[in-house]
């Protein structure tokens, strides 16, 4: 089954595959990107985002959420290339994340990819049927009709909610001195509020809270309207990769420590000269050789 999105909309395609309990892969392409959803018995069991859309890649999401460092991610990706295993499976095997965490982030990945393809107005789709057996390390299969309802809500509300925040990059932080009642929060708000400890970059806060961008923006808007957070825009030039910041800081601390060590070394040499003057100089000898006179 294949065709153009303009002729047969994305929601209809997902509805059709789900209602008929199909198994196989649904590839959706548009905007120079291709996303592949894997179905088993009409439910989504996995997704493969386009490699060029790094934000939706599982490794990147886990790195942004603080489960991995840059260097670890690179190492696991190279290991993935040689072992042929999927990154999530490797991470669970290596004990970097639990199966529960993996399952939650797989659901998040599916949602992000689905919301992303829902925005496509032009493109193509192709469904290939084949038997799919869900992997043991993955999460529960996801019913597309449930996701689709959230997707429709996303299409309706996201533009409005996005408009509340600055158009470019921005930072969020808790207002100082605000007293909050956690029971007054919704689940999303509560998770977001907690994740604000992690970073002031909203994208990383969403990832830490394991929320889609839409869910995150929605929760963040609610917190903003309650006056619990502050939002500040940053110019594009000021945006710096946090990993790079850390690398720079480590390099600075190494340099600083080397300079400090050198200064202490110089001070030690000065002290040695000073001690020599006190205990081994000609002046000191006059005192320390007093006993010679007695013999």
């Amino acid at each position, binding site marked *: 089954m294949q065709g153009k999105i303009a002729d047969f909309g994305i929601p209809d395609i997902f509805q059709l595959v789900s209602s008929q309990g199909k198994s196989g892969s649904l590839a959706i392409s548009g905007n120079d990107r291709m996303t592949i959803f894997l179905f088993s018995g009409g439910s989504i069991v996995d997704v493969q985002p386009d490699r060029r859309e790094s934000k939706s890649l599982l490794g990147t999401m886990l790195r942004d959420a603080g489960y991995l460092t840059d260097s670890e991610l690179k190492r696991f990706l190279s290991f993935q290339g040689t072992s042929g295993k999927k990154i999530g499976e490797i991470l669970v095997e290596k004990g970097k994340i639990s199966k529960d965490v993996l399952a939650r982030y797989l659901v998040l990945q599916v949602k992000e990819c689905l919301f992303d393809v829902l925005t496509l107005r032009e493109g193509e789709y192709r469904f290939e049927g084949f038997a799919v057996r869900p992997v043991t390390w993955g999460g529960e299969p996801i019913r597309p009709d449930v996701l689709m309802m959230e997707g429709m809500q996303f299409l309706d509300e996201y533009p409005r909610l996005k408009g509340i925040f600055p158009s470019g990059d921005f930072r969020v932080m808790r207002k100082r001195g605000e007293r909050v009642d956690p029971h007054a929060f919704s689940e999303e708000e509560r998770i977001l509020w907690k994740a604000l400890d992690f970073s002031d970059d909203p994208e990383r806060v969403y990832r830490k809270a394991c929320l889609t961008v839409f869910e995150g923006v929605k929760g963040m808007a609610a917190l903003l309207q309650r006056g619990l957070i502050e939002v500040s825009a940053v110019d594009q030039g000021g945006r710096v990769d946090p990993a790079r910041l850390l690398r720079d800081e480590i390099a600075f601390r190494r340099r600083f420590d080397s300079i400090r060590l050198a200064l202490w070394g110089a*001070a030690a040499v000065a002290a040695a000269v000073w001690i020599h003057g006190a205990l081994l100089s000609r002046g000191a000898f006059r005192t320390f050789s007093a*006993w010679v*006179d007695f013999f």
Partner: protein
Amino acid sequence: MVEAAGPGKGEALDTEVLALRRAMFDHSILSMNAVPDLIFDRAAREGWKGRSYESLRAVSRVAPLSVPLWAWLAREDALRFRLEEFLSDVDGFSGALRQYGPGLLGYAVWLVLFASASACWFAVWASLNLLLRARPALTSDVARLLKGLPGQEILASGVVLAFFAVPVAFGVGIAAAAVFWIALSAAYLRRGELVIGGTAIVLLFGVFLCGGFLEATRPIGGVARHGGWLGGEGYHSRGGSDLDAAGRDLLAGPQWERLARSADARAEMQGGNLKAADSIWTGLIEEGGNNADAYNNRGIVRVRLGRIGEGLADFETASELKPAGGRAQWNAYQLYLQEFRLDQAARIQPAAWAGIRALVPFDYRAGEMSHGELIASPLRVGDVWMTLFTVREEWLRDAPGSAFRDMFFRPVSGGWVPGFLAAGLAWMALLKLVSVKVWMNSTCRSCGARTLIVGSREAADVCNACRAQVGKGVRGGEERDRRGLSILLHRRYVRACSVLFPGAGALWAGKEFRALLYGVLLSLSAGLLTVSWSAGRLAGGLIGDMQSDVWKAALGAVAVLWLLGAAWGWRSFETLQFNHNVAGERL
């Protein structure tokens, strides 16, 4: 005699030695200590120093009280593996030390100077190591004080470096700087390290007192070599001792007073003022006490004055008071022979000969004792030893004006030094108490991580991550990277400290008491270097020659101990890290 000495001139020298010995007996002189020094100086000047052994061995019979001569001979015997001669020379050395007042004084002063120099080295070693041990945590706490300023860590590092460098830059005395550094470090130290710091401060008080001791003793040394007070044995007397200028007022006490008068009498005897000598000896005998030596010497004086009977009576009395003395029996035996009282002479002959043969380091031979020689008694220098080391108020009184005060405690004025040291100790105790009641930084000994803690600092000087032996096994991300960096920098710092300041690595590894022992050994070696190097460069003669060897050996010992300490500290710290799973090069 000095001209007669030299390689291959044994016979001529022996003749001169015999002639000199006779002259010495005539003047009741026991030893001519200047002779070996003059011969050695000539040998050094003329290039036969290495072949001067035979000449110096020969003149030991006219200079038996020369401590440097016996020491030099013993050293040569040791180097040439002559065991019998070596043991004999060690006996001579010991005998000279026990009977030659200035030698014993010099030995005592040497001990005091050696102890002072070692104590100063220990204070320097301890204070530097403790400051470097405390530096990371101290820097963090200074940074807390500078909170709000830009680059507070850089500023704090500069401030702590300034704490170290300012005393050096301003040329403060090493003892004053050491106390300052120890006081600065006290809040961050373990109990064992506080013991090291406290020991250093107590030792510095000892150095201060040693300064007083030297100040009280110094004037005696100034004149001892020139035939003055106590210098009579072996030097040309100027007809009387320099008692007022050199000793009587310096060391108080009845024993010292008695010794001073004995020295007066000996000087008068040697100068030929027999009536004056008789009067002094008589005065001493009338005061009571153990007067065997005084009776013997007065007997000699009276025989010289022609009062043979009185002299003989004195010798008999001395023999009764000190039957194993040797000298009095010999002198009585000589008089009996001269008086043809052969029965009496035969009665005491065995004891007389046995007695003078046992008078180490004097070497009296039968063939040379046939001219009626009378043997005088030397000063009772055991009394000098007792008097010297009796704790006296003068030590504390003279200490503020001593050379040590200026050398080690400047700019603290003399009267304030005891208070300054006491304040250092009190400050240490106070800061330690305060540090367990307020939040302060602590540095993990294993990985270098700094933590703000309060309460029992000793129990928290290894961080939880190291206790759990997780190494870098913390959750991935910035925390892990920072921990790796902390481990790397800490390792580099402790290794540098271990090399530059041996024993530092052992302190980081928690081996305080072994480090204390190591510091004592290192300081003793360095103290020996200080005292012997100074003499080797300035003294010249026999002493200078021997001290040159000593300082080379001391320097070797310091170098070896330094290397061993650096390796030990390095390895101890590696082991500590290994035990906490942060060892290796997996960063």
